[in-house]
């Protein structure tokens, strides 16, 4: 174990700074405001910092380390061109208060992204401002809210979510001030249309749903669900977490949704960064466009007097404030750096984006098929079953390890830890809650057949592993199973300095 706080070298050795440009005696900080004790920060030299963080990085698993089949998270390869472009001074060194004529190239990219995202989801207007998927959800729900307010429909206080929804859905709608109605899914994870019909009414503001659902199953009744909600005057919200499954094959717009968020850090390869930053633009149908957080980018033909650059021969790009905007959800223009990275990703595919989703779905189905096939060969297919029995899945699938748990006493978490020992990231476990001992697997399109074959083999091996080994797994990782209860009962949220 090595802590940053063990390094206390000579002051100022981390990196050299020039002297202040003006005598510090002239700084007249009021007596009562002068800081008495400096923070107890360590002092790392550059080699110490580089080694400390390199050492920590070796204790971390990323997509670069190995296969990362984390369901619902779309852990695809992050092309490095993204990083190169995002470091260019034309984005990294731009201030959000610079005038439009200094940032025509940036606005051109934003405009292209707004248009592209709109086309992909079948939406009429897009804002790039929300900085994460959850914030996108919140933003869209706020737009619904203002839409209803303007129409005088104040009685719409309820948002319907299926019990298989991502936790952010109910959390976002609650934050906006709505009451949550949770409806049960059918046993195969699909929407229970009758249950939906039973809860809608004139108090319905919206339904939030992802399709394919969190079991990776496409909702065949989606248009019927949309009709039911629309009939009572509600809005349909598409959680874009699973957009990687359907891009170019169908669209939320076609399915009847009114608003959608995009996770640029899932579908469009912005790196997840150990937990962020992400980017969660939203797209809406035309009746909601006037409520989007502002400003959004628009363009007009160039006029004489416009300052032209390489970026705007024909068009002048400018900010536009939607007339009934809900206001802002981030102070500036969102995670622009993530938008730029995603633009680079988009340009690689262009109108071929459909193949991205096709390969993602192909990989998921192949892996699912391979696991079942091998399990049968090795006689362990009775130990698990499909989370949702269906001919084909979309970008991900779920397995229930309830039988394994019953027969051998090892559950989804034990299998997950066993996979860690074999050099894989574990799939998502225990979500969605409607599948007992659930394991949710999403391979993404960027994995090769060889990787999927190896994983399937390994997975089936582990099912057959000595339960004793699995409950004690992992043993090859930097630490073994971490005691989360101890962490919560003996809170230690920062380094305890000895005075």
């Amino acid at each position, binding site marked *: 174990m090595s802590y940053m706080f063990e390094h206390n070298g000579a002051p*100022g050795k981390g990196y050299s700074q020039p002297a202040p440009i003006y005598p510090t005696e002239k700084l007249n900080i009021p007596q009562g405001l002068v800081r008495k004790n400096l923070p107890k920060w360590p002092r790392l030299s550059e080699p110490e910092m580089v080694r400390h963080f390199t050492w920590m990085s070796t204790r971390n698993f990323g997509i670069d380390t190995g296969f990362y089949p984390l369901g619902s998270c779309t852990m695809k390869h992050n092309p490095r061109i993204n990083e190169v472009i995002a470091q260019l001074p034309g984005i990294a060194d731009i201030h959000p208060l610079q005038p439009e004529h200094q940032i025509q190239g940036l606005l051109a990219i934003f405009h292209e992204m707004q248009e592209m995202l709109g086309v992909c989801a079948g939406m009429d207007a897009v804002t790039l401002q929300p900085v994460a998927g959850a914030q996108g959800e919140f933003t869209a729900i706020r737009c619904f809210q203002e839409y209803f307010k303007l129409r005088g429909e104040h009685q719409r206080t309820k948002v319907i979510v299926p019990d298989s929804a991502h936790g952010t859905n109910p959390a976002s709608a609650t934050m906006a001030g709505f009451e949550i109605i949770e409806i049960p899914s059918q046993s195969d994870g699909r929407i229970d249309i009758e249950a939906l019909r039973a809860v809608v009414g004139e108090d319905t503001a919206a339904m939030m749903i992802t399709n394919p659902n969190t079991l990776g199953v496409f909702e065949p009744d989606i248009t019927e669900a949309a009709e039911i909600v629309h009939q009572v005057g509600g809005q349909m919200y598409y959680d874009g977490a699973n957009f990687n499954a359907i891009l170019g094959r169908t669209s939320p717009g076609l399915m009847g949704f009114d608003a959608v968020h995009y996770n640029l850090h899932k579908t469009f390869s912005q790196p997840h960064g150990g937990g962020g930053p992400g980017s969660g633009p939203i797209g809406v149908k035309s009746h909601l466009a006037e409520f989007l957080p502002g400003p959004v980018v628009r363009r007009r033909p160039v006029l004489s007097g416009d300052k032209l650059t390489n970026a705007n021969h024909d068009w002048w790009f400018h900010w536009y404030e939607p007339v009934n905007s809900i206001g802002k959800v981030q102070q500036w223009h969102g995670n622009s*750096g993530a938008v730029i990275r995603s633009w680079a990703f988009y340009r690689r595919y262009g109108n*071929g984006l459909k193949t991205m989703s096709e390969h993602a779905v192909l990989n998921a189905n192949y892996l699912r098929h391979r696991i079942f096939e091998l399990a049968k060969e090795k006689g362990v297919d009775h130990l698990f079953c499909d989370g949702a029995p269906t001919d084909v899945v979309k970008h991900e699938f779920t397995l229930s390890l309830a039988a394994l748990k019953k027969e051998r006493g090892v559950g989804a978490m034990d299998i997950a830890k066993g996979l860690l020992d074999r050099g894989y990231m574990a799939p998502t476990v225990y979500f969605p809650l409607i599948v007992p001992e659930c394991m949710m697997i999403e391979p993404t399109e960027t994995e090769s057949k060889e990787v999927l074959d190896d994983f399937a083999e390994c997975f089936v091996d582990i099912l057959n592993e000595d339960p004793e080994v699995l409950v004690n797994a992992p043993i090859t990782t*930097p630490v073994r199973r971490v005691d989360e209860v101890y962490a919560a009962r003996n809170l230690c949220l920062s380094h305890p300095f000895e005075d």
Partner: protein
Amino acid sequence: MLEAMGLSSIDDLFADVPESVRLQGDLPLRGPQSEEEIISDARMLLGSNVALGERVNFLGAGLNRNYVPASVFQMINRGEFLTAYTPYQPEVSQGILQAMWEFQTLICQLVGLEVSNLSLYDGSTAAAEAITCAVRVNNRKASQKNTVYISQLVPPDRLSVIQNYSQGADITIKLLSHNLDGTLNLESLSEAAGSCGIYIEQPNPLGILDSGLTGIKEVIGPNTAFIVGVAPTSLGLVEAPGNYGADIVVGEGQALGSPITYGGPLYGIFSCTKAYLRQMPGRLAGRSVDVDGKEAFCLTLSTREQHIRRHRATSNICTNQTLIALMGAMHMSLLGPEGLQLLAQRNMAACQMAKDKLGQIPTIGIPHLSFCHYNEFVVELPGFAADCLDYLDSQGLVGGFDLSQWYPERKNWILVSFSDQTQAAEIELLAAHLAVWSTSKKPELNA
């Protein structure tokens, strides 16, 4: 692969998508490009922007162009950090977990409080989340239920974020007024007694360090949250709010570790006392042990969060700004305490020099001259701010910020900002241009 599954076409995998919602053909988008073409287009488009480094510039308003050491940019590209998800499997995520635990420590030390989360989206959402958190904690005892007072100087865009976040919890936002000299009006403050919290920024949005804030906690009492928004580098010289009674400290972390990147990704600082811990938003890394009793890290108190708590969560935040916070941790560890102090001195010295130089120009004014400023101050002009900025632009300077965009009645105020990157010669240049422009103006506006 299709063959192995007994399928003949990729279409078979989409057979479950009802006919009526199928898209036909390719999307109406441009064709694909090679990596080389993309880089070339990126250089062309982004290269047409005016990067701040190419111009003498005085834009700030909360985002300052501070130097970030080269090693930070190199280290952040470690794929094990860059391409990892949230550390839900702690056994293979010790790196990011420990780094975030160290980040939390650095922030606690910086602001003088006991608890810090591992980042929110930016300074504005951190302020907004602090306000809703204060209501959750204090509403029961408050005589002014669901009410929070915030400084009237808070810029409209930040205020808008706060309103969006707080309206769902039925929170009433009332304004605290400031005196003409820019300091907080203490009489106005007395109205906030019995409310759930107050939110004030130090330095305030006009760059003023207000020494009156140190006595505020005694005035508002224990059951009203004292929330302070900080410029983090200033805390190398200025007292940490935790040491003068702040319950929650928030701020825009960008100046420590991150480029401006057109305003995102940045990272929001959120730090609080233990009294607010159970109601705080965002993720927390905690130190624990593994089954062998070895020290180990994991996410903790997750029962506050959406993936467990769903609609009863303290916030909907899931993805945050971990990687940018990681850059912050790297930068802070290299600075050390004395480096932070020097960085603060450099920022403040540039600002002070500019005040002294611009203060000598008789045709412009500095309304808050006698106060202590950090990073920025207001210049009052004998004409429209927009005209002045156009003139400076024509001379190749990114001049500053037209404050009428925040405060519509202030048509002749600009906010000029200085950082550790500001050179003495640049200040001289600004002074020279302002002198030329302002002497050419007949006073169009009343001061």
